[in-house]
């Protein structure tokens, strides 16, 4: 019966963590009015969560687009359909790869940094110190980070997709000789604003909420030791990646029937 007891304990522990995560989210949302009154807090976090992630997103976007251009050309040319390369590159990026790869990179770069920062603030009693100074750390420290993540993710995903399209253009048009006019015209006619672009934006907003929420919760809920912070950072990347991939399937199924 030990396994049953262990299963029960794991279930209870999971439910408790889920409850704490939801309470934390409520607490952070209650801090929104304070953050709106002091936009500087948000701007500081937009810099560290968003702007400092731009480089890795930009470089990855270009390379993913270039690979898509190569692979797409290789397959499409077998059917004489290389003229549709632009559509293939853009649709892949805007619908799937833009939001998903951006979220995975975001979890690795910004999410892990958020967990480590918040975990270390907890371990060094900075969060307790704020509480004792009558400052609510959920409002003062966590809410701006949550909102910075939610705002940054769609912008980063858009940047990833745009640079990816140019990466595909560089390989397809610049190196492999696809007609430039066809590349852009096919893309313009076949990519739908609401079905493709807007759905991609919705996905990236959802991923932004989930990845940042996981990162903040793992840091805030960690055991305040160096080992605890290390585990929290690892869990952030693992949980965020799994959540993004799972949610991507659900969202795709809902959006594209």
């Amino acid at each position, binding site marked *: 019966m030990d396994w049953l007891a262990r299963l029960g304990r794991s279930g209870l522990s999971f439910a408790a963590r889920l409850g704490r995560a939801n309470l934390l989210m409520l607490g952070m949302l209650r801090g929104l009015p304070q953050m709106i009154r002091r936009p500087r807090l948000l701007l500081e976090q937009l810099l560290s969560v968003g702007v400092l992630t731009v480089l890795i997103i930009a470089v990855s976007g270009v390379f993913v687009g270039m690979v898509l251009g190569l692979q797409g050309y290789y397959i499409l040319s077998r059917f004489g359909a290389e003229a549709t390369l632009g559509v293939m590159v853009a649709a892949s990026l805007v619908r799937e790869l833009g939001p998903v790869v951006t979220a995975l990179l975001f979890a690795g770069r910004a999410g892990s940094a958020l967990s480590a920062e918040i975990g270390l603030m907890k371990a060094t*009693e*900075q969060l*307790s*110190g704020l*509480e*004792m*100074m*009558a*400052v*609510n750390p959920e409002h003062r420290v966590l809410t701006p980070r949550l909102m910075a993540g939610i705002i940054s993710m769609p912008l980063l995903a858009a940047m990833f997709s745009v640079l990816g399209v140019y990466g595909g253009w560089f390989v397809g048009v610049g190196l492999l000789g696809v007609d430039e006019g066809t590349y852009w015209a096919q893309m313009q006619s076949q990519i739908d604003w609401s079905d493709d672009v807007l759905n991609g934006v919705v996905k990236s907003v959802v991923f932004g909420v989930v990845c940042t929420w996981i990162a903040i919760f793992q840091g805030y809920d960690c055991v305040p030791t160096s080992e605890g912070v290390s585990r929290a950072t690892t869990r952030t990347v693992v949980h965020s990646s799994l959540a993004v991939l799972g949610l991507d399937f659900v969202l795709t199924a809902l959006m594209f029937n």
Partner: protein
Amino acid sequence: MNRHSAPIDTLVRIRGLKFYRGSRAIFDGVDIDIPRGSVTAIMGPSGTGKTTLLKLIGGQLTPDAGSIEVDGQNVHALSTSQLYRLRMRMGMLFQSGALLTDLSVFENVAYPLREHTRLNSSMIRKLVLMKLEAVGLRGAHSLMPSELSGGMARRVALARAIALDPMMIMYDEPFTGQDPISMGVLVQLIRRLNDAARITSVVVSHDVAEASQIADLIYVISDGRVIESGSPKQLRDSGGEWTRQFIGGLPDGPVPFHYPAPDLESDLFGDPK
């Protein structure tokens, strides 16, 4: 008991405090009175819950039973906003200093002023420099926390704790890990701030000599209970075996030198399991 003839009323009143971590009782019916305007030391060996007691007084933890009143208000019956208002009148010096590492010394001390007052920047600057002058670190205002020694970090944290002119300050192990000079400075600062600003000080410590030097009243706690209380002299003259061992730093006594273990002979020569 009180060297400076302050009105002897009680600022912090703890009654029947019980607090458990899992099934282990950290406090099991503790009664403590902290007189207003005094330096009260809470002493006891490591792991007896001294820091937990400060967190209970500050409302960061909730007791399983009993009550804690600060300035006549039951801390754990207050709403969040009332608790935060009360905390604005309480300062706490954490063992690590708990300075915000991304802010300079000046900004750390200015932090509570910026959060809770509408003072203009010129007034905040004057106040911060005065607080830093009080702890001897006005010249270090532009340094970052990573550039401070442990003792300096605690003094900056002390300047921050007094920024809003609180009615009481709680010190969590202020002397631990300090060199003799820093320790002497902190001892002197705690006493001087207490007397000059008429602040009530609660010092949690296991450094017997330093705490005895500044305390008006000492509570010795162990195994979840108050073992003894009184002035430093009363405790030194105490007949209690436990208190004598603790105050005298004796290696063996009611607190045994050996952690409970099976018989040495059977452990060394018996069958290893």
